[in-house]
């Protein structure tokens, strides 16, 4: 037990020593074996005198026997302690860098979409919610918001995506109550009034904020969020039609800046994780409930 310990210590000393002293050690160690108690009368003493360095001579006395000294050279700088230290340090560094890499990647995603000056996605708006109350972009600030565009007559994709969104809301709510506002914006303002939105969204999640407005307001909103939508032209009153629109969830930060778009490739769990990770990274103040 004491031998490997001594060996490890010796190895540490040896590594910390500068390479210029390497030759000194080999010379003195040869003399150490010959006459351990005698100070070496090394050549070029002037050089040694100028240096205050002497521990090499003292270290000689750490080995009580020649066998001990020999064993240190047999095992070299490796011992189980050195190995353990190496593995732990390595694992720690790998963990740290992986963690940091992921954080930087999220930061980059969030930063990349943050335009200089005017935000690239999102912006000011003034619409009415499912209760007929006016809602502006200012009301959404202070919390993350997840914005989805759709329409109540949507045949398949929106209902599925809204169910997915409801699942995401639950997952995020479980960890960050009130940390996120789920927003549904209709692309079909002609048919989706506050009442229609209220009935429709109640079937998905009670937390939904449904937004509608005039055609021009919705058009401006969709443009701000870079959402493509097309309502057929020349619709007669009472005629049915479908609206074509983009199907992304837009994650907006508490300052109203766009963070990331979540698409159909994300499962609710993956999406919730992405949202929660972004929330973790947020340095500013967050409203809750």
């Amino acid at each position, binding site marked *: 037990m004491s031998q490997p310990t001594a060996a490890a210590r010796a190895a540490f000393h040896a590594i910390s020593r500068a390479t210029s002293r390497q030759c000194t050690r080999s010379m003195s160690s040869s003399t150490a074996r010959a006459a351990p108690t005698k100070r070496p009368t090394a050549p070029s003493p002037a050089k040694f005198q100028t240096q205050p360095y002497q521990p090499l001579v003292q270290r000689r006395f750490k080995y009580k026997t020649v066998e001990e000294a020999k064993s240190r050279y047999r095992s070299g700088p490796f011992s189980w302690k050195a190995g353990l230290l190496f593995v732990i340090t390595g694992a720690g560094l790998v963990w740290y860098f992986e963690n940091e890499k992921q954080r930087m990647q999220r930061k980059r995603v969030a930063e990349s979409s943050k335009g200089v000056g005017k935000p690239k996605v999102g912006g000011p708006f003034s619409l009415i919610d499912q209760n007929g109350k006016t809602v502006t972009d200012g009301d959404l600030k202070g919390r993350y918001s997840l914005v989805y565009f759709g329409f109540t*007559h949507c045949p*398949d994709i929106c209902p599925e995506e809204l169910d997915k969104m409801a699942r995401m809301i639950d997952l995020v709510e479980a960890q960050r109550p009130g940390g996120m506002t789920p927003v549904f914006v209709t692309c079909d303002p002609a048919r989706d009034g506050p009442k229609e939105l209220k009935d429709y969204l109640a079937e998905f999640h009670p937390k939904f904020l449904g937004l509608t407005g005039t055609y021009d307001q919705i058009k401006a909103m969709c443009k701000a969020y870079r959402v493509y939508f097309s309502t057929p032209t020349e619709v007669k009153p*009472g005629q049915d039609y479908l609206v074509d629109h983009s199907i992304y969830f837009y994650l907006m930060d508490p300052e109203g800046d766009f963070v990331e778009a979540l698409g159909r490739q994300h499962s609710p769990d993956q999406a919730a994780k992405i949202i929660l990770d972004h929330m973790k990274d947020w340095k500013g103040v967050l409203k809750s409930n």
Partner: protein
Amino acid sequence: MGLFDYFTSSSPADKRATEVRTGAVAPTRAERDRCWVARDAYFACLDANGIVDALKDEKAAAKACGSVGEEFERDCAAQWVTYFKKWRVQDIQKKARLKELEAQGANKMDIQTDFAERK
């Protein structure tokens, strides 16, 4: 105004069903689910009879899947019926193309554009 009212054919339920069909009101969750079930039954019938485009091969589709087709049209908004029929054609083409690409050794991406699994 639930699912079962449809079978009693009372007049408010009939009115509601007509409204859903014409697109005057947005369907509820139950109405949507019923439409999707009818759609899946109709598509299964088309599959069994080897019909891809129910709009183009209207006569063949009506002959082979007349009764399920009527149910499909009864339970879904007229716009949805057309949409789903068109979607079916595109979906079959897409799947064929994917198969072709896979045979050529293309890389698969994890994207789901299918109708999600329903309970």
